[in-house]
């Protein structure tokens, strides 16, 4: 498709238009005032942000299932370790009571 400005008759018009497009001068202290505006704008609420993202993470089924499984296994491991320690202590106390006469305690 042919561009209308490619027409030889329009060439002077195009050049004139190109020259007429002037970039306006920036107001004085433009950069400084932009920075001032940025600094003055309120910061995003960070507390709500991390809480929301944590809640979103907890609601993810994959994460929820993984966390529940990890807690379950940790509970079983710790509980069985503690249980075997208690059973051992109990058995030890029974043996000592059987071999050590009360008169020596």
């Amino acid at each position, binding site marked *: 498709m042919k561009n209308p400005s490619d027409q030889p008759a329009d060439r002077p018009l195009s050049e004139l238009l190109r020259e007429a497009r002037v970039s306006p001068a920036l107001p004085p202290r433009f950069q400084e005032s932009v920075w001032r505006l940025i600094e003055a704008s309120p910061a995003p609420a960070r507390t709500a942000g991390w809480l929301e993202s944590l*809640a979103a993470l907890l609601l993810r089924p994959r994460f929820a299932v993984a966390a529940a499984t990890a*807690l379950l296994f*940790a509970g079983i491991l710790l509980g069985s370790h503690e249980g075997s320690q208690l059973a*051992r202590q109990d058995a030890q106390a*029974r043996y000592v009571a059987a071999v050590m*006469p009360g*008169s020596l305690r």
Partner: protein
Amino acid sequence: MKRPLLILLAALSLGAMIFAGAYFASRRTCEMCQAKPADNLAWLQMEFHLSDTEMARIRTLHESYLPQCAALCNRIAAQQDELDRLPATGTYAGSAAQAISNEIVRLRAQCQAQMLQHFVMVSQAMPPEAGRRYLAKMRELTLGTNLPMEQAMPSMPGAASHDHHP
């Protein structure tokens, strides 16, 4: 703001419930599985990984030790009763009480020596390493109980000769 906080709290409570449930259930199960209330020697097998043959030998030693131990205990109890029946005052009562106390101390020493002898015999029925461990543990559990009391006793005049005791 409120909804995420509620989700967090609910997740924490659910997690705590899962952990606590698993912990208490497995602890109880483990305790019930390992406990053998009828067998006083179960600890030996559990702690020192003994075979059935070694356990049978130890059981024989244990069963022959118990009546000897009971006989000495009965003699100590009889002496103790006699001491309790003595009148509280009087020269005769004082000297008799002294004699009975001496007899109780002698019987206790005999009882303790017999117990230690039994520990040595049991340790010899075990593999060497387990036997050493058993002896050390039994010394700690039986003789070790008197140490805090002995260490707490103030040093008496003329008791300097006892200082060399551990």
